[in-house]
Every structure is written in structure tokens, then in C-alpha cells.
């Protein structure tokens, strides 16, 4: 682990400056930033509801199940679903795109 510039780190910068890399980077941010914003908002909504709308959260749906309980359960489900989607997206779309770019830059960057 060294902090000195090396041939590799120059190669990193060279790759980074290519327009293909910039579009790859946009692809990554285009997925990750909105996803983060969404799950944080969804999560904070649950807390807001449980503080300001206890009546709504208490509403019975069936038997011993209330709206709040379903909401709470859904939170776990969505967290899992988002992680799953992210992993699938990264494996199917982002990594292949990154690899294609790697092949394309082969010789110039390596």
C-alpha cells in the first residue's frame, strides 16, 4: 500500500479521463444516488408516520395485524429488495459495461 505515484496510478488517471469512463461513471451515479435518496426517504416516512399519525398506524387490517406492523415489515422487505436489485444491476449491467470499457482501453491504458 503506497501513496507514491506509480505507473499504475498514471494508468488510472488515463482511464478516468476517457469519455467512455465518464459515461460509465454517470451510469453508476444515475443508479446509486437516486436509489439512496429513495430508501432514505421511505425509511424516514415510516418514522414520521409513527410519530405524527399513530392513529393511522394503529388501524386494524386483520386479526392482530395493524397498518404500522405491515409498514415495519415492508421496510425490511424493501431494504432487502433494493440491495438485491443493486447487486443484480451491478452484476448484469455495470460490471459488463466496465469490462467492455476495459477491453476497449486495452493497450492504451494498461
Amino acid at each position, binding site marked *: *500500500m503506497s*501513496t*507514491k*505515484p506509480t505507473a*499504475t*496510478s*498514471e*494508468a*488510472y*488517471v488515463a*482511464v*478516468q479521463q476517457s469519455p467512455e*469512463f465518464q459515461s*460509465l*461513471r454517470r451510469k453508476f451515479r444515475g443508479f*446509486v444516488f437516486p*436509489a*439512496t435518496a429513495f*430508501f*432514505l426517504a421511505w*425509511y*424516514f416516512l*415510516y*418514522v414520521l408516520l*409513527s*410519530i405524527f399519525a*399513530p392513529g393511522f*398506524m*394503529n388501524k*386494524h387490517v386483520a386479526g*392482530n*395485524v*395493524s397498518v*404500522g*406492523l405491515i409498514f*415495519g415489515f415492508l*421496510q*425490511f*422487505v424493501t*431494504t*432487502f429488495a*433494493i*440491495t*438485491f436489485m*443493486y*447487486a443484480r444491476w*451491478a*452484476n448484469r449491467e*455495470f*460490471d459488463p459495461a*466496465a*469490462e467492455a*470499457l*476495459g477491453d476497449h*482501453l486495452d493497450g492504451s*491504458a*494498461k
Partner: protein
Amino acid sequence: MTQPLSLAAIVAVCVATLAIGSYGLRISRATSDFYVAGRQVTPWRNASAISGEYLSAASFLGVAGLVYSRGIDMLWFPIGYTMGYLVLLVLIAAPMRRSGAYTLADFAELRLESRRIRGLCSALVVGIGWFYLIPQLQGAGIALRQVTGWPTWVGGTVVSVVVALAVSAGGMRSITLVQAMQYWVKVTAISLPAFILLAVWRADPAAPSLDPATLWVSAGTGPGSGLYATYSTLLALCLGTMGLPHVLVRFYTNPDGRDARRTTVVVLGLLGMFYLFPPVYAALGRAYASRLPEGARTDGIVLLAPHLLLDGTSANLLSALLAGGAFAAFLSTASGLAMSVAGILDQDVARRLLPRFAGEDLPDRLGIRLATVVGLAVPLVVTWLLAPVGLASTVGLAFAVAASTFAPLLALGVWWPRLTTAGATAGLIVGSVTASLAAGATLLGFTSDDSWLALLLAQPAAWSAPLAFVVTIAVSLLTPGAIPPHTRATMARLHTPESLLT
């Protein structure tokens, strides 16, 4: 009121931990084996280990205690624990992996090119580790007292000794094995009694109702709750997870990025499955005992629940299972923390000081063994001196310190090229001083009254984390000349997918 079955279960978990730990002694040879298990852990085993480590005393006992005392809306607490993982995964994990740094301190040194900031980070890792170890040891004391009547210091001491032996014996590889085993012990221990108790409750015609409406106490009531406290804790959980030293290192024990992601998916599944059960105990506890028996703590509701519904041997069997599971929780989290703290003490302190006092010719791994002992002795002594404040809230303070220090460092370090060494240093100092002063005041019991000041000190994250971010950014903008010289190369490296350059 000694319960021999529970005691036997606890002893069994401790012995199993030691046995697996000593097995690891034979298989771990290289240094990378010791710290990151040779980076060769399969996703399923690694995910079990991560979950095993993450589900601490706060999860096994504390969450049920919170839901029992404050209502089912406290579910956001475990949801926050899992959410922190997601934030870490999508924003930080991949760039950290690519940096090639083993620890938070390594990353800080690499990104900011300063030895001083490395020292600061090392001190923080040790501090946060100790904050997090304290409730594990306290929890062990509470659990052991509940099943044997022994004083609380015994439990913490037992956990410290077992962890010290397991860590110094085998390092990360054997700890990974131990923790993976402990996850499944914990899930079995919390789910099986839950199903049995629910069946007992259904079969009993005179059983009290489990109406969720009676559980839904508004978060606006009671001390320490309310909008401010809730959001503060949320922020601490979302941002703090990335700054917990024992969590981040886990992303290095996978062979590659693909496996790291797969691991996280499995982790969130495993954590979600576990968190279904603590609320069951809280609900049963509320239905059967609206008030706790004399001397019992809300954190003990999980261990108490079987005795509320059953008596005799069946109750003792179930609470033995739960006691064993709780000990697995203390042991696995404490091992991960002790591993991180000892690693830092060994790398940054022992290896520099030991040769000076004992000469160059030291026995293999003397440093890490000494570091493990010191790393565990300090929090243990603290638990002897202080009365426990509440497991989930003490763990919350560790998250708050992490959120006010490593979160700005990591988030800005990974995503903001204009971060300067001066800015990062200022942010770390402001964040650590404010958050740890507040946490210290809470631990010492200065925040028991209902004033605003007490609330701000008990829940520091909502102001200390943004403050640390603002200071880091402001000082960075004021010192544009102090941008580390290789920032561009480092940033390029952090954000270039591995497949491009390998």
C-alpha cells in the same frame, strides 16, 4: 435462583467458541490470514459471520427491551441497523475495496497522505471499539445474573477471557468461523422459543390478547423519545454503520467485488429474518406482564418471557436456549470488536514500542496477544465501575461517535476531490470531541433529567454529525493548497472498477 440448564447452555457456547478458535490456530499462518482471513471467505460463510458479528447484545436483548418499554414503533431501530448496511454498500464499500486499504486508518493515510491523520483515526477506532464493547460486556453481566444470580461483573469477565483467548489464538480466520457458527446459534435460539411461546399463547383460552393497538405507544411520549431523539438516532444508525471498524473490514474478507455484493444481499436477508423475532418477545411480555418483577430490567425481557408463559422444566429449557443465544451474541460481537481494536493497538502501538523495551527478538504474535489483553481490559474495567445505562442506547452512542467522525471522512474522502488534510483533521477533531464528550456525559449519568441540554447530550448525532461535515467542508475550502498531491490518482483508483485494470 440458579438455573443449571441456562448455565450449561452458556458454558457450551463458550467452550464451542474456544474449540473453534483453537482450530483456527492451526489453519491461519500468514498475516493476511490473521487480519482478513486471506481474503478467501465464501459469500455464505462470510454473510453468516457478518450477521453473527452485527447482531450484538443490543439486537438480541436490547431491541426487545425497547419495544417492550416504548412500543412497537421502536421497530425503526432494527430497521435502522439494516439501513446503515445499505448506505455502506452502495456508497462506500466498492471504493474502499479498490483502495486496497485493510483498515479505516490505512484508508485515511492513503487518501490524505498524512501519518498524523492515521494516528488520529487509529485512536478513534480504539475509542469507538471500546464504546461498543462496554454494552456487550454489560449485557453479558445482566444475562448471567438473571440465570444464576451472580454479580454483574462475572459475565463481562467471562466474555472478555473467552474472547481474548479466541482472538489471540486464531485471528480473523478462526473468528470468521466462530461468528458464522454463532449467527446460526443466535437465530435458532431466538426463533425456536418464539414459535413455541406463540403456540402456547394460541392454545391458551385464557391468554391475554396481543392487540397491536395496545403496543403502539406514540413515540412522542416518555423520556428520550420524540422527533429529535428519533431522528438523531436514525442519523447515527444510517451514517454510523460505515464508521464501525469491525463492519468495514468484513468487505475485505471476500475474494472480489461481486462476492462482496452477494454477501451483502445475504447479510440483509439474514438480519431481516433475525429481527422478526425480538418484537414477538416484547409483545408477549407486554401481554403477560405489563410491569416487570422487582429488580428485573427491560433488557432482560427476552430471557424472562418463557417464565411468564410456562413454568418448570419447559420454561427453564427455553430460557436456557435464549441464554445461550444471548451469550453467542456477546461473544461474536465482542470478538469482532476486540479483533479490530487489537489490530490497531498491535500495528500502531505495540510494534513500535515493544522492540524498544524487549529487544528485536520477540516471539511470534506477542504484540497482538498483548494488544488483545489491553484492548479488552480497558472496557472491562469501565463496566466494573459504571452502572449500565441501557444496552441499545449505549450502542447508539458508539454509532453516534462513528457517524460524527468516520462518516464525514469516508463519504467526503470517497466522493469529494477537494477534501484537504487540514479539513479532514479539523472535522475528525470536532466530531470526536463533541460526540465523545456527549457520550461520556451520558455514560456517567449526567443526562437523566428532561432538559434540552440532557437530550442534546444523550442523542448527539443530529448535531455533531452535521457539524463535523460542515467543519470538514469549510476548512477544506479555506485551505485549497492542502489538497493531498496525489488526490487525482487516488480518486481515479477508488472509482475505477477493478475489472478495468486487472
